[in-house]
C-alpha cells in the first residue's frame, strides 16, 4: 500500500480507533509554556492525577517574559504569577523546566529543535498554534487547546479525527531577495487563511529540498495561517545533520536504529493526497501584508487589490483596510513605518539575524524607526554575538534584546502603540495583535531590514 509521510507517522501513533469518532493518538513530545498550561495543571489537581510521562514533557517560559533586564524580578504581577505557576507545576510533576534566566531558555518552538527534542517521525504538541514549526523535521506537530494540554499531561494522548492530506509542491528555485518567509506568505495569499482548514500539509519540491532547516521551520510554522492543522517536510540529510549530536537525540547504536526508521519517512511514490497544489518558485517575489490577516499579502511592489477582486466579504475587506488606514490601489513601496520587529518563532533564528544584518551592514538605522531585535533563544543570542553580528548591528544603530515571544503577541511590555505601523517578521497581523490599535505588516527579515534602514517600505533587492 502507498502511504503519505503523514499517514506513516500518524498511523504508527494510533493507540485506538473509535468508530465514527476520533483516533486516540499517542504523543511523543509535549512542549509546555506558562500561558496555556496553568488551567491544565489545575485540572490535574482537581482530578487528583499526576503527569503520566514527565520525561516526555518539556517546559519553557516565553510568552510573558520581558526582553530587557531578565535578571530582575518580573514587574507585571500577573505575568510573574503565571511564570511562578509554571515553575511550581514543573517541579511538582518532575518536568524539565527552562525558566527565565536558564541558559536554554527561549521560545518553545525555537528551543525544541535546538536541543533535539524535535525529531523525525515524532508526534509533538504544544498549547500554541505555531507548534507546526516542528514539522520541518518530518514530525507531526500541531497546536492544541488547554483541555488537550490537560489530556496529554494526564494520559499522553489526545483524541482527534485524522485530518485530510494536502501536498503543496513548489518547483524551481527562488530569486534573489526571496526568502522562505516570502514563500509561505505567497502560498497563504493564494490559499487564504482558511484554504487548508481540515488538512495536514506536506511541502515538497526543489524549493523546500534546497531550503535550510531554519527556512523549513519558517514555512512549516506558517502552515497554521492557511488554516492547516500543520505542515511537514520529509527528513533528509540536512535534517539528520542538523539534529545529530544534540542533547536529546539518540546516540551510538540508537542513532543508527533511528536513522533506519527515519529514512523510511517519505511519501511513497503513488501515495494519494486529498488535494495537490503546485507553484512555481521563480514567480515568487518578496512579500508584504497590507491587511489584518496573513492571507492579505502581496508582492512588495504590487498595489493593494480592489475589494471586488477578493474572495469573501467586501465589508470585511474594507473594515480591514480601514483599520490599517490604507486604500485600495495604494502602492506599498514608500509607505512610512514606525517600528520594526525582528523575532518570534517564525523568524527569530540565527539565519534570520544573518539575513537582517546582511542588509543593514554599513548603513544606519532610520531615525524615525524603533527597532526591536529579539532572538528566539539564548542559543541564538549567543550565536549572534559569537558570529560578530552584534557588532555590525550595534554599529548600524541597533540593539539586541533578550529572548522571548515579545511583540509577536505583545503580552509583555513590547507593544506597538495604537495607530503605529510595524514591519514585523512574526506570523500574525490581526487587529491589535502587537498591542491595542497596532498596525502590523508581515514580512521577511530582509524586508524588515530594508524598512529599518530607510524608514519606509522598501524593496530589499535594491539594497542587496
Amino acid at each position: 500500500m502507498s502511504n503519505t509521510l503523514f499517514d506513516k507517522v500518524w498511523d504508527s501513533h494510533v493507540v485506538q480507533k473509535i468508530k465514527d469518532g476520533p483516533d486516540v493518538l499517542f504523543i511523543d513530545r509535549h512542549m509546555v509554556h506558562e500561558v496555556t498550561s496553568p488551567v491544565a495543571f489545575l485540572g490535574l489537581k482537581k482530578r487528583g492525577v499526576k503527569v503520566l510521562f514527565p520525561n516526555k514533557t518539556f517546559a519553557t517560559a516565553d510568552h510573558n517574559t520581558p526582553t530587557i533586564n531578565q535578571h530582575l524580578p518580573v514587574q507585571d504581577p500577573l505575568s510573574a504569577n503565571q511564570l511562578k505557576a509554571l515553575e511550581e507545576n514543573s517541579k511538582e510533576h518532575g518536568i524539565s523546566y527552562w525558566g527565565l534566566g536558564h541558559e536554554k531558555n527561549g521560545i518553545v518552538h525555537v528551543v525544541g529543535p535546538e536541543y533535539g527534542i524535535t525529531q523525525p517521525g515524532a508526534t509533538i504538541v504544544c498549547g500554541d498554534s505555531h507548534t507546526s514549526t516542528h514539522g520541518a523535521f518530518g514530525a507531526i506537530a500541531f497546536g492544541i487547546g488547554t483541555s488537550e494540554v490537560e489530556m496529554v499531561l494526564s494520559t499522553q494522548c489526545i483524541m482527534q479525527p485524522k485530518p485530510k492530506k494536502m501536498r503543496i509542491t513548489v518547483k524551481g528555485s527562488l530569486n534573489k531577495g526571496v526568502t522562505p518567509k516570502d514563500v509561505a506568505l505567497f502560498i497563504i495569499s493564494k490559499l487564504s487563511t482558511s484554504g487548508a482548514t481540515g488538512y495536514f500539509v506536506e511541502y515538497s519540491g526543489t524549493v523546500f529540498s534546497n531550503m535550510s532547516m531554519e527556512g523549513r521551520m519558517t514555512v512549516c510554522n506558517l502552515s497554521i495561517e492557511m488554516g492547516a492543522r500543520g505542515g511537514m517536510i520529509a527528513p533528509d540529510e540536512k535534517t539528520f545533520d542538523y539534529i545529530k549530536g544534540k542533547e536529546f537525540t539518540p546516540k551510538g547504536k540508537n542513532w543508527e536504529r533511528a536513522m533506519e526508521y527515519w529514512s523510511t519517512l517519505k511519501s511513497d511514490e503513488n501515495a494519494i493526497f486529498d488535494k495537490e497544489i503546485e507553484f512555481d518558485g521563480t514567480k515568487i517575489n518578496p512579500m508584504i501584508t497590507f491587511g489584518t490577516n496573513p492571507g492579505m499579502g502581496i508582492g512588495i511592489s504590487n498595489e493593494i487589490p480592489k475589494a471586488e477582486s477578493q474572495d469573501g466579504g467586501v465589508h470585511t475587506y474594507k473594515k480591514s483596510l480601514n483599520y490599517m488606514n490604507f486604500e485600495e490601489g495604494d502602492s506599498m513601496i514608500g509607505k512610512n513605518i514606525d517600528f520594526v520587529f525582528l523575532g518570534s518563532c517564525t523568524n527569530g533564528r540565527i539565519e534570520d539575524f544573518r539575513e537582517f544584518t546582511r542588509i543593514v551592514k554599513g548603513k544606519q538605522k532610520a531615525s524615525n524607526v524603533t527597532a526591536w531585535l529579539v532572538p528566539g533563544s539564548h542559543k541564538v543570542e549567543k550565536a549572534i554575538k559569537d558570529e560578530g553580528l552584534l557588532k555590525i548591528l550595534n554599529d548600524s544603530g541597533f540593539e539586541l534584546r533578550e529572548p522571548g515571544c515579545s511583540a509577536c503577541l505583545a503580552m509583555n511590555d513590547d507593544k506597538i502603540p495604537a495607530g503605529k505601523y510595524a514591519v514585523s517578521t512574526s506570523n500574525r497581523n490581526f487587529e491589535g495583535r502587537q498591542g491595542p490599535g497596532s498596525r502590523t505588516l508581515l514580512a521577511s527579515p530582509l524586508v524588515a531590514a530594508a524598512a529599518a534602514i530607510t524608514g519606509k517600505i522598501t524593496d530589499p533587492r535594491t539594497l542587496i
Partner: protein
Amino acid sequence: MAYDKFNILKSSCVPLPIENVDTDQIIPARFLKATERVGFGENLFRDWRFNSDNSPKEDFVLNNKKYKGKILVGGKNFGSGSSREHAAWAIYDYGFRCVISSFFADIFRANCLNIGVLPVQVSPEFLEKLFNQIYENPETEIEVDLTTQKVSITEQKISERFEINSYKKENMLNGYDDIDYLMNIKDSIKEFSKSTPL
C-alpha cells in the same frame, strides 16, 4: 472536567456578520494572564467592545440591547488564528452555549467541543437567511437540537442538518469529556508507550 449536558437549545441570537474572526479579537493576548479559568467573559471581544478608556463602543453588537441570547452567529472562518482555548472560555463565560457559522477554524472547533460549546456549521445560504431573520426580528428564536442534529429558524419553518461525529455528540449529550475516556484506557496507553521509540 465534565461540563453541562447539551441537548436542545432554544434561544435568540447575537449576530456578528464578520468573516475570519480570529481568536485575538475574541480575547486579546493581554487578558490571558490568569492561572484559573474565571472571568474571561468580561473581556470577550474586548477591543471591539470597548474604547481604550473602557467606555463601551456603541456600534458593537454586544453593546446593543436589542440582541441577546445563548447563540452567537458569526461569519465564515470563525475562530481562526491562535489556539488559545481562552477564546472558547470567554464565549462560554459570557453566556453563549452555541456558535453558528458557515465555517470554523479547526482548533477553535475542537476547543469548543472540549468545553461544552456547540459549534454548528451551516451552509452559507442558511447563514445568510439566519442573519436576515435576526435583523428583521432580533427576538427570533432559533432551535439547535443536538439529538437530531438540526438547527431551525422556527419562524420561517426552515431547518438544516449539521454534522458532528457520533463520539463527540455522545460526549456533549452526556457532559463527558475526553479525559474521562482516556483515563479509562490508561492501561492500553501505557502498554502502547512501550512500543514507541521516543
